[in-house]
């Protein structure tokens, strides 16, 4: 009885945010999917009737490498971010409260400046006449004719740079709740520091790992500014294609079809993760 009562109360409390999500997220998503099945008109609008043409266009061989590149760049970004964020979250959660505040501030401080400006800063940093290139050449760490810009390397670098806070914050939230006494227990039972970290800390923050992975993966999948600014002509991601279809070709239905495909690509890992988490919880409770 009370549990039911409590549950209905919880529903009431979440109603505003659910309504918000419904109006500004679910309905637009549905609209995008619907538009994907409409023909385009010549003025850049959406014509009457229904068509499968846009869906067929997706199998255009020119999209396949773009889709694969989007996937590998996003997956690589996710893995690199997790690899970097795990030890950072571990340390931030272990230090004293004052240093912890400071470190967390450092993590979020980049958000105070505009995203485009930060990406542009990387562009000038990596420019052939830029300070980083010159430094590397003068230290003989790079050949004289090194080009750090306009290939997929800098795209990955800047992707990791922009997404790293989104990996650190959920991992930190999980690490903060982690009982570090468990690491003592692991050491006591014969695990070296590394094995204690991998066998006890990493499983201990797996919820945070999943959220961090989803955050980074989903945000990376939709990127189009970064490949455009620091990547080369052959480093386009799916986001760039959507932008081109929408803004250059003014073909909204085709852009919608691409966007729907991307949405699907982002949704599948999320649903998998959610299912896994639910399954894991049931298993733990049984």
């Amino acid at each position, binding site marked *: 009885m009370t549990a039911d009562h409590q549950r209905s109360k919880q529903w009431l409390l979440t109603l505003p945010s659910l309504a918000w999500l419904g109006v500004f997220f679910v309905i637009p998503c549905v609209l995008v999917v619907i538009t994907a099945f409409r023909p385009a008109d010549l003025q850049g609008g959406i014509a009457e009737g229904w068509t499968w043409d846009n869906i067929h266009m997706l199998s255009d061989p020119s999209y396949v490498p773009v889709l694969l590149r989007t996937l590998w760049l996003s997956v690589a970004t996710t893995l690199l971010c997790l690899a970097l964020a795990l030890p950072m979250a571990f340390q931030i959660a272990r230090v004293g409260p004052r240093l912890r505040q400071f470190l967390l501030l450092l993590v979020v401080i980049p958000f105070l400046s505009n995203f485009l400006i930060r990406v542009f800063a990387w562009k000038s940093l990596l420019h052939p006449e830029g300070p980083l290139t010159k430094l590397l050449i003068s230290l003989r760490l790079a050949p004289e004719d090194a080009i750090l810009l306009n290939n997929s390397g800098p795209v990955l670098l800047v992707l990791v740079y922009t997404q790293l806070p989104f990996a650190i914050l959920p991992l930190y939230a999980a690490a903060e709740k982690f009982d570090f*006494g468990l690491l003592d*227990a692991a050491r*006591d039972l*014969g695990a*070296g520091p590394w094995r204690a970290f991998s066998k006890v800390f990493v499983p201990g923050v*797996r919820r945070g790992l999943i959220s961090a992975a989803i955050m980074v993966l989903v945000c990376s999948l939709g990127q189009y500014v970064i490949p455009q600014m620091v990547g080369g002509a052959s480093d386009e991601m799916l986001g760039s294609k959507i932008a081109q279809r929408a803004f250059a070709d003014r073909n909204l239905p085709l852009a919608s079809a691409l966007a729907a495909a991307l949405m699907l690509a982002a949704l599948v890992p999320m649903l998998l993760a959610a299912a896994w988490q639910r399954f894991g919880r049931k298993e733990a409770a049984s």
Partner: protein
Amino acid sequence: MDDFLVIDRVSKSFGSLCAVDDVTLSVAQGEAFSLLGPSGCGKTTLLRMIAGFERPDSGRILVGGRDITALPPEQRPVNTVFQNYALFPHLSVWENVAFGLRMSRRPREEIRGGVDRMLELVRLAEHARKRPAQLSGGQKQRVAIARALVNRPLVLLLDEPLAALDLKLRQHMLVELNTIHEQVGTTFIYVTHDQGEAMSLSDRIAVMNAGKVEQVDSPERLYETPRSSFVATFIGDANFFTGTAVELQHEGYVRVMVEGLGSPLVLGNGVVSSNQTLKLMVRPEKISLTLQRPPSGERVNAFRGIVEDFAYFGPHTRYRVRAGEHLIIAQLQRSRFSGGEIDPARGTEVWMTFHPDEARVLKLEDVVS
């Protein structure tokens, strides 16, 4: 006594705070030994140094003749039962117990056999598949013990093993721990602030205070012949009297003049000279109360007092009796009242009696403070 676990002049400071101050201890193989003291006395720091989580500033720690002072925790032949158990929440009971054997890369069959046997020992075989979150406090405790013992440590450290349990369970686990200790025969080191726990669990107890060891002795000797007033008050209750030795008698007895009470005869422990100031200690249950003056004799100390108040506890009743400046606590069992008298009420004049052998002369440097 064979020196199996040796703490050799170990000190450890945190900043300006000296947590463990030049402690030397020696524990025999198979012994159940307790580090007892109030919080902040350094017992936990000492335990963490034996486990390897803290490095002593100076001194050595030896197990079975081998110096382990510099070894990291994972290389020590020592395992710990943590105060909050520190069970791995993502692993089942079975996997928790198997953790140590897996870390030392034992063969699969050995792990299976060892874990099953250990779960049998702590009677948790039917819970092997559960997660720690599904266990009761006592079951978690037993998992923690099994997880440590399965590695066959030379020394098992138990940090406040009963603190997280409720009273009923605590009494049950007390018996259980003694049984397990008997069965495995490993050296057990308990850390506890609870004197009752330490008394019933250990062969010997080291009472610690402010980073130093006050006394190491069997529970009985600690209670009956404490060497300092700290030990006397930390283990059990005590009445203290400061007095002057006025008359040395034969067989080591000494008559002590206590201002406002009288001059009881006590056993002097051979360290008393005449006119010396000293401190006496008498346990409350060693004092008996009577309404009539007891028949006087050579070896009887009897003093008059007024019952100020009393509290009935069931097995015993505690009286606070005023005699001049002194407020004396006496603890009696009802059966002691011969002649069927009712309990003395508040304001009743009573006689307090104790035998000279039941009073203790405490460490003399203690009097100075």
